[in-house]
């Protein structure tokens, strides 16, 4: 059961490939996986497509992981979105309920949408 996903980033292919390996923007999670990453020009003015293929995995594995919120594909998508945000806007989108940016494990049980106090800010690593 092959797990694949893709995202499109609004930049030229050369720039995207360069930033993919640069330390500030490199998506750590995907790099650590045994995944196949391909880059392709998107039609028209849409930028560059990034395709990630996790390869065939155990069926049970994928199912149990989905329930624990650590679905491998969800984390890959998070990484891709984070990469896209960094490349296109220069920062990771944060809200008061998700101060660390998007994280698959934090979809349930988020903190309320109100500002963090100082200790929470420190814990979230955004001081």
């Amino acid at each position: 059961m092959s797990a694949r996903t893709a995202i499109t980033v609004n930049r030229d292919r050369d720039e995207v490939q360069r930033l993919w390996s640069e330390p500030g923007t490199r998506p750590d999670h995907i790099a650590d996986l045994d995944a196949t990453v391909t880059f392709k020009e998107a039609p028209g003015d849409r930028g560059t497509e990034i395709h990630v293929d996790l390869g065939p995995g155990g069926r049970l594995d994928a199912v149990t992981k989905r329930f624990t919120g650590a679905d491998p594909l969800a984390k890959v998508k998070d990484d891709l979105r984070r990469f896209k945000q960094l490349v296109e806007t220069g920062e990771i989108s944060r809200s008061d309920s998700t101060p660390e940016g998007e994280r698959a494990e934090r979809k349930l049980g988020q903190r309320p949408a109100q500002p963090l106090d100082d200790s929470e800010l420190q814990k979230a690593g955004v001081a």
Partner: protein
Amino acid sequence: MRANVWSGRNTVQVENVPDPKVLNERDAIVKISSTAICGSDLHLYDGYIPTMKRGDILGHEFMGEVVETGRRVEKLTVGDRVVVPFPIACGNCWSCKHELYSLCENSNPNAGIAEKLFGHPTCGIFGYSHITGGYAGGQAEYARVPFADVGPFKIEDDLTDEQVLFLSDIFPTGYMGADFCDIKGGESIAVFGAGPVGQFAIASAVMLGAEQVIAIDQYDYRLAMARNKAGATDIVDFSKDADIVEQLKLLTGGRGPDAVIDAVGMEAAHGHGALHAADRVKQATRSETDRGHALRDAILACRPGGIVSIIGVYGGLMDKFPMGALMNKGLTIRTGQCHVHRYIKPLYERVRNGDIDPSFVVTHRLGLDLAPDAYETFKHKQDECVKVVLKP
């Protein structure tokens, strides 16, 4: 700081919460001078939008003074008076570059949740549940505004808060509703819902050159405002006669309106007896999330080949959608959360020129601490309430 937080169905409370901080270098912090309660806030209040958490600060229509900026903010300085658009847009993605700001691909840090519901994520919105990112809203003393170079709009003259506050949401939303109707001059436009957004849709249709603008509602006082203030040429009061489709035909010589604007959304009040009761029960048991009476009537009433412009907010799924009518009459649907950033400057110019005074919708101006009673008054249409402005 004090803020109005969601505390369960039909409950909001003003509580003390921490002050917002700059989290990203493109953020700004705004000290809020005026904020408003939106009709779409009522969907949160009534418990119809999932992913709300106790403690979420509500409010997405706000303005005030910039008190702090992140290091990479260039277009704003401390002290600037700004109106903040409700959709959060990064300005750099494909959608933003094509002026589809409410479809920003980067501003929702809960994109995974939105993707499950809608197929793709859409923009982050202030104070509108965790589906749109879980951002703290503006019914508070201060707010953190991301992408401060893209959103906040500077006000550099003497207009009062109430004359410009609605540039954040309801004026551009109503205007976009009318803009979608492709008005060239001389059309008949029907606006379902004479709440604040409906009022602006009516006024915008008039400004754009429609010859006949029909306001549809069940409350006398809202229809009076539509006629006296917003420029509606005709009204339909469906509390007196429930057959809206027929009344619209009579008002348009049997043709039907050239375009219809749905400024009602998922909590449509009107229904034909049993269908309405069934809808309400289904909505209560969450087997259908959106009540569709207004939209159904709008589709049936619209003349063949016309345009159905949907600016009322819908969240989930609707039963009994008249797909046959839509297809066979060749109707065009245009819809979306308002791309405020696209309209805010031209509409500001109109206000400055005196073409329109948006403060006409304000019926209630109260301190932030009265938010709970204000929500109830607004929700139950008490005291001739149309629009509530809160002062923190």
